[in-house]
């Protein structure tokens, strides 16, 4: 591969800087696309090419391949990518991105002129545009900011380089450039870069806030997110797998509680946000029914709705299609997504289009002691669980025996009833079991010792005696069901952290939880949590680990805010912002009008009655402050003015008075000063023609030279002596 050094003009005009800037831009663009498509191969190939070129450019060398080789490479790349696209179901945007990346790489190995650099930059822009259509992540946006910087710098450097090259091509002797040659204007370019990038970002923000959002349509359907790793957010709960879990601090959901009147309720203690509930435990696994039945419950009566608490939820789209709310949520509504209701007041959210922003919905939840109408409504929409449902339960005899041992007293009090379930004793049994479980087992996320061949609950209770919330909840639910207590396993989040600054509950991924719900006729489904307390404390660690955890926490907080506030900015939010600004502006205008009226009437009162009102005092005080500020600014400008005009030639200093006097004396006697004659020559001529004493004249001229040219200061005595000499010369000449 030919290696060719830069020409003298290229070296002088700073081609290396341009090349490095372009290479950085190309690399950032390919990294952004790789982030968007979640594939590193093409970015790695591009990075190798960029590094090779950067090293070469650093040494003022250009690496280029033969044109035939490049053309052949382009053809091969085109053919391979076309074949790959046709033979797979890859997205066309991804294929085009790969194509542009490789063409860009080929272009880098060409002998580059300014036009080629422009083409490379344009291709990088296309790559970023394609990436922006695939990803809306915060990291992508931050990289985009870096790309904006590097692209702007590269484009500006390219412009300057072209200009410098053209200027240098006019020069005959590059080695002896004149004083006008100033080299690479690095500081000036960087200074302009700041202005340019700020202006672009400001315009982008303005456009982002103002531009209307369309209804979408035609976009690809939602990519099924990898929500399965979100800690229990799955259609099934699988136990007994030997593994170690990691629950991150990533914020996944925020929730504001509002009273029926719309006021913010603030922190309301521990909230169990239910997503799914499971009834059937088979083979160490909790399963939902194969066909979930969509339910169309009647609208709750107005007085029921008016007593509900509104839970306004923003959550990551990766949690879809579940909706999370405390039980019972009698209504869920959203402007973004379609809400479907299933049995047991479970809700699914179905987005109509590709949705990368946060999902917002409002759940209306019944809390506290239920009114008779609310209880009636709930009975109507959620049928009482049947006792026969528990008949097919497969429970290990040891588990049932253990449950009976733990609950001997409550069971005794329940004995003899026809329908043994749905009474208050069931709740007592469940609570007894929960407390015993907390005493017997400990909480852990390390389940590497689990035996997949054994029943998970049996293994948990009799061998491991440790597990996470799903184990505790499963054991409790299974034991309850073994004792004919209507219980179910629910998964979701346990919201406990209230962000006072943001005024909302903050739910993280590690808040994913599983618990048991027990049904009684009097209370409906009641949460019974068997998991030991203390599991919500952040993971302990020190030093670097703690900092790392904290940094990760901050990052996830930003990420959630990014999705919630930026990506989720829609027409509704735009209208809200507009109305807020309009209200603020109207309020400001009203305030100005009020103040003007107050000042006016204050002045009227001042002139009419001689009373000084507070408004007048403020008015005159403000006027004085503004006037003072303007005066100070003018004074500052006055002082700065000479510095601004520094490029102008400084005027010649005024000659000292004794020398001016000497020139007048000599001029009066016919010896004018010729500009081509120096003061010493003038003095010599005066001595020859006018017979002036040479010593005195020499002293005067020497002092003038010292003051004028040597930047020396003369003492008052010396100046006085020179003036006396001049006076004496004048007298001699007059005589």
């Amino acid at each position, binding site marked *: 591969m030919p290696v060719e050094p830069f020409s003298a003009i290229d070296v002088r*005009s700073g081609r290396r800087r341009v090349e490095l800037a372009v290479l950085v831009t190309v690399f950032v663009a390919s990294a952004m696309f790789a982030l968007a498509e979640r594939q590193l191969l093409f970015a790695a190939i591009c990075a190798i090419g960029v590094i090779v070129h950067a090293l070469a450019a650093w040494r003022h060398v250009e690496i280029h391949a033969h044109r035939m080789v490049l053309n052949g490479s382009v053809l091969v790349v085109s053919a391979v990518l076309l074949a790959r696209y046709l033979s797979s179901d890859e997205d066309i945007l991804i294929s085009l991105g790969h194509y542009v990346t490789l063409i860009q790489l080929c272009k880098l190995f060409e002998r580059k002129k300014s036009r080629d650099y*422009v083409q490379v930059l344009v291709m990088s822009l296309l790559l970023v*545009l394609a990436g*922006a*259509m695939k*990803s*809306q992540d915060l990291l*992508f*946006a931050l990289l*985009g900011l870096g790309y904006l910087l590097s692209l702007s710098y590269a*484009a*500006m450097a*390219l*412009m*300057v*380089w*072209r*200009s*410098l090259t*053209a*200027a240098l091509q*006019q*020069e005959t002797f590059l080695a002896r450039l004149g004083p*006008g040659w*100033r080299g690479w*204007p690095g500081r*000036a*370019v960087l*200074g*302009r870069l700041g*202005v*340019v990038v700020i*202006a*672009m*970002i*400001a*315009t*982008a*923000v*303005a*456009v*982002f806030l103002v*531009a*209307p959002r*369309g*209804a*979408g349509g*035609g*976009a690809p359907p939602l990519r099924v997110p990898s929500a399965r790793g979100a800690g229990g957010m799955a259609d099934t709960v699988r136990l007994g797998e030997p593994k170690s879990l990691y629950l991150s601090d990533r914020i996944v959901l925020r929730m504001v509680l509002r009273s029926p009147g719309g006021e913010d309720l603030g922190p309301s203690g521990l909230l169990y946000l239910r997503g799914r509930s499971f009834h059937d435990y088979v083979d160490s696994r909790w399963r939902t029914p194969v066909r979930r039945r969509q339910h169309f419950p009647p609208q709750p009566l107005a007085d029921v709705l008016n007593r509900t608490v509104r839970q306004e939820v923003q959550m990551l789209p990766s949690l879809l299609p579940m909706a999370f709310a405390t039980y019972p949520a009698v209504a869920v509504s959203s402007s973004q997504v379609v809400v479907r209701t299933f049995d047991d007041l479970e809700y699914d959210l179905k987005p109509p*289009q*590709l949705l990368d*922003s946060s999902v917002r919905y409002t759940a209306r939840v019944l809390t506290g002691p239920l009114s008779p109408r609310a209880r009636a409504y709930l009975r109507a929409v959620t049928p009482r669980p049947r006792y026969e449902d528990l008949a097919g339960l497969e429970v290990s005899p040891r588990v049932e025996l253990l449950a009976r041992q733990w609950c001997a007293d409550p069971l005794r009090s329940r004995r003899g009833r026809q329908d043994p379930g749905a009474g208050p004793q069931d709740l007592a049994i469940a609570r007894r079991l929960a407390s015993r479980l907390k005493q017997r087992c400990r909480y852990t996320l390390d389940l590497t010792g689990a035996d997949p061949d054994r029943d998970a609950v049996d293994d948990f209770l009799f061998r491991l005696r440790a597990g996470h919330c799903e184990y505790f909840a499963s054991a409790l639910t299974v034991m309850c069901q073994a004792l004919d207590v209507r219980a179910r396993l629910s998964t979701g989040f346990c919201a406990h952290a209230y962000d006072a600054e943001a005024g909302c509950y903050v739910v993280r991924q590690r808040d994913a939880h599983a618990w048991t719900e027990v049904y009684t006729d009097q209370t409906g489904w009641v949460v019974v949590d068997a998991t030991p307390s203390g599991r919500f404390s952040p993971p302990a660690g020190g030093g670097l680990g703690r900092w790392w955890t904290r940094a990760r926490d901050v990052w996830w907080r930003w990420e959630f805010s990014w999705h919630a506030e*930026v*990506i989720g*900015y*829609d027409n509704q939010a735009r209208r809200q912002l507009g109305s807020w600004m309009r209200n603020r*502006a109207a309020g400001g205008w009203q305030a100005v009008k009020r103040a003007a009226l107050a000042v006016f009437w204050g002045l009227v009162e001042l002139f009419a009655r001689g009373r000084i009102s507070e408004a007048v005092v403020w008015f005159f005080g403000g006027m004085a402050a503004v006037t003072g500020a303007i005066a100070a600014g003018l004074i500052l400008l006055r002082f700065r003015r000479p510095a*601004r005009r*520094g*490029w102008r030639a400084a005027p010649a200093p005024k000659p000292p008075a004794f020398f001016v006097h000497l020139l007048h004396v000599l001029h009066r006697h016919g010896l004018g000063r010729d500009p081509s004659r120096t003061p010493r020559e003038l003095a010599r001529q005066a001595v020859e023609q006018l017979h002036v004493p040479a010593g005195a004249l020499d002293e005067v001229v020497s002092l003038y030279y010292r003051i004028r040219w040597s930047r020396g200061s003369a003492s008052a005595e010396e100046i006085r002596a020179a003036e006396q000499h001049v006076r004496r010369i004048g007298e001699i000449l007059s005589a």
Partner: protein
Amino acid sequence: MQIALGRHGNGSLGLRVRAWAWVAAGAVAGALVAPAHAGWMVRLACVAGGALAGALWVAAGTVRLTVAGWIFLGASVLVAATAINSGLPLLFAMFGCMLGALHVSAVLSRRMAIAVGVRRDCPARCRQGRAVAVGYVLRSGPRGGACLSVRVEESGRGAPELPPAHCGYVPARGEAFARTEMTPSRRGRIHLERLAVTTSFPFGLVFASRELRQEATLVVWPARGRLIGSLLQKGEALVASPSPSVRAGGQDEFYGLREYRLGDSARWIHWRRSAGRREPVIREMSRPRPRTLWVVLETHLPDSSAASIGRRERAIRLAGTLIEDSLAAGYRVGAALVSAGRCVVIAPADRRAQRHRLLDALAGVEDHTTCHLPEMLGRLRQTWLRHAHVVIIDGSGSADALAEETLSRLRRHCRSLSIIGGDRVAEVFEDDPGVARAEGD
């Protein structure tokens, strides 16, 4: 030649005042067209819209999109359409960035074009077929900041095809230089009327230009060829001086000795002769007396064919070469020709000013019908012709028709008379090969 400008910034204050006037006019118009019953926000929006329209109108005068800018604008529209269609928030942000790039390009480039002041720095005279450098001194105004990637080119009617001069960087409140070269293909006068300062910094999307009025004239002398043979004879010694003549290539010879006088340079003391005397003696040199040469140039064209024009131009180049060679050889040269539409008789003289005068007149020779060769010869005084060589260069072939009486009068008064015309030009004059090739093309 330097053309001094009145104020630094070359009228940028006027531009600013005009711009603000347009903005104010737009705002007033917006206020007038606002509905009478509208709220204050609508009124404010109308005023702001009017001001914006005024600003755009002002900007449109100095700013326009380049080809790349049009393509970029089209791409921006596509991105906007995609963003609206897909609702992807980052595409909205990218569309905003692209709009911002266009906007900031327009503002920055216009600001730079206004801020930079230019002074042309070029020679007053140049020669046909020889490259001449035209320099520009660029100065950034006190509030303009640094200006980057500035291009200066000549504009206006009849502007020469001068490649633009580039300057990569004009520092804030500082100076920078840009230069370009041109090779005039024809003699004459090039009138430089206006300068256009242009820049498309920072992205090359928007092109801002500003014209400055700076008038200058560049006189293009005819190309210098080579005289074949000796048209000119040697001069004769007339005066003596203790020092040889200043002109190089003279024929100064030893004339004699004389006694030293106060003021003589010690350099010319003849030390060997002075050794035997009581006072020093000094050498005196003879200097050739400058002869007088009259160049009479007839440029009347019998027809406007290319051959006639070429013959005339060649005659002019021969005259120019003859004048320059003669002046270099110490002749006093005068000329009679038709320049700038009138018959011009330039009295004989030597020195550099005479060379400029004669060659400037040659640069201004045009086709004419006013003054013919006999009339030009009639304008030459007898006293001027005494001891003079007269060379009549005939570019039109009319010398053959000269009356014998005229010729005999000339021969009677002058020392020698040569008539060069028609095919004889090729015998005595070898043209500049570059210019001859260009004219042949």
